[in-house]
């Protein structure tokens, strides 16, 4: 049973407007890390939003473990998938503690307030990801990297089967990118969750040994394991002629050692 399965997903932002997604199809096995790669503006964010149920496709289906997303209630969806996005300016005066607790919403009844059990679960995750020192801070006081990790923790608190991340590394420096990607790896290994994240940097897929989906012209034009896809030949259709290995460069490109 596939964790994620998309079939012929088509989407545009208005009637008669350009089709941002045009017949997208992909599938992911449970417990894998998957990377959605494409250029800026190619529709990565849109695709992830459709997968999260935030936008409705014109045509096509999105399935999680065989169940059609559009047939699930909001609560059920929250148990199936968690969505991590890039920024949240207006929430900056929430404390990290409170924000993480919001992830328990789908497990609580309508009139419930998070109790000891929920707070314990959150503490555990905070310790696991090493952000205990951020626990009492406000979201607005965090750096970009810290924020991203807190977002991921929130998704973990939700304890969903799938985690979708929209360009989690785009605004981070290499050190923090490394941190986040390492965390994503460990999540997939330790908890059998299925991760799908989007990025425009192909190296991220290599780093996480992800399954790669290349998005171009609104379609998945190529897919496969990172070691096969992340080569200049397979990437040329998207990135153009200039794409090459760093060792072919006249200067030594800098990367970050994988832990």
């Amino acid at each position, binding site marked *: 049973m596939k964790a994620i399965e998309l079939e012929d997903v088509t989407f545009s932002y208005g009637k008669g407007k350009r089709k941002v997604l045009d017949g997208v199809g992909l599938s992911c096995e449970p417990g894998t890390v998957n990377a959605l790669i494409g250029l800026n503006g190619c529709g990565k964010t849109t695709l992830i939003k459709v997968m999260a149920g935030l936008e409705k496709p014109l045509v096509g289906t999105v399935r999680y473990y065989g169940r059609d997303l559009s047939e699930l209630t909001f609560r059920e969806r929250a148990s199936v998938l968690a969505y991590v996005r890039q920024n949240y300016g207006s929430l900056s005066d929430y404390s990290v503690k409170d924000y993480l607790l919001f992830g328990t919403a789908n497990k609580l*009844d*309508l*009139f*419930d307030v998070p109790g000891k059990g929920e707070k314990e679960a959150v503490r555990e995750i905070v310790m696991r990801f090493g952000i205990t020192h951020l626990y009492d801070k406000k979201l607005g006081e965090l750096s970009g990297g810290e924020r991203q990790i807190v977002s991921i923790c929130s998704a973990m608190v939700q304890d969903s089967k799938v985690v979708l991340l929209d360009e989690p590394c785009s605004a981070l420096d290499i050190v923090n990118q490394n941190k986040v990607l390492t965390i994503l790896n460990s999540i997939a290994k330790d908890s059998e969750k299925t991760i799908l994240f989007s990025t425009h940097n192909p190296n991220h897929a290599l780093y996480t040994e992800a399954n790669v989906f290349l998005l171009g012209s609104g379609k998945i034009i190529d897919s496969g394991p990172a070691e096969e896809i992340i080569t200049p030949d397979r990437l040329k259709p998207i990135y153009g002629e200039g794409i090459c290995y760093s060792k072919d460069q006249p200067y030594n490109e800098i990367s970050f050692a994988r832990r």
Partner: protein
Amino acid sequence: MSKIVAIVTTAVVLAAAVGGGIYFWQQSNSTSDSEITVTDMLGEEVRVKKNPEHVACVSRTTYDLLVAFGLGDRIDGVYKSLLENEWTSVLYPGSSNHFSYDYEPSHELLIQRNVDLVLSPEKYVTDGLKEHGIPALNVSLYGNPNFEPYVYFLADLAKKLWPDVDGVAEKADAWKAEFKTVLDEVNSTLETKSYPEKSVYYVRGDKNNGIGYTDTRKSFNEYVFSQLGMNFLGSTFGTNKPSTDAILDANPDYIVIGGNYQHTLRGLLDQSIWENVEAVKTGHIYRIGVGFSPMEQMGVFTPVFLADMANKLYPSDFHYDTVTMLKNMCQTYFGITLTTEQAGYMLDGMGPDGTPMA
């Protein structure tokens, strides 16, 4: 489990709130110790204590008539502008005992002063007072469909409210008779003459709002001037603040000016803009006397007002001795001996010292 508790709690609280709401709704206010039912100028029936002893005259038109009928010591207070008027203390020294009310006095203040009846021109105010158990009657200077049915309203009301107080009925009837006499004479004289209808523009001068401030349809003013065979222009403008253009266009044959500011306003009519108005050309500009309040506001001196206007608008037909009328009224109703000079000042819209009051 917690869900059930929550639902039950919510239901209980909601039921309590709705029940509480209904309970409070049912609480009707205690009716005062009332004995008669009277109808006010808006046709509302109100239960009022017979022979009330602490009346709040928020409606300006009620004060001097009630004092005239001998009810001065049953008045608790009056709208402040009347007490500020210089003639009030001259004509009725007892006014110094009266409380000075705002336009919308607080209910607690009225209760504190044991007011048992409020006369107000404002439905909104009387409604609120009645809801809090303070009897209130609408008495105003405007009538529906016009003022004609209400000319004797206050006199009749006084008789109904104070049946056991000596002299009230007699004085009220005397006042009614005096007014009726003048009215009948004016009507019958004008009938025989069949003058063509002329137009009159009334300038309201209790505030200094310029020439463009008048009285409208349904007012007491409209009634009086229509009885004098005049077309009251205030009825035609649709507003009580007509523009200069509108007044020039209407080209009144007569202009009358009332209120404390009448002298200033009379001066404004000398401006060139008014030169071509019929009333200005022919010199038919007249000022109105002032008593407790401007005489064109219904009150005890209304018969004098009517006579005075008849004299001024139809000088060949009417020759009322308004000075004597005024002196007689002051003697009869207030026990005040007015000098001829004082009477003259009143008719001339001046203060007791012979100078304009504003």
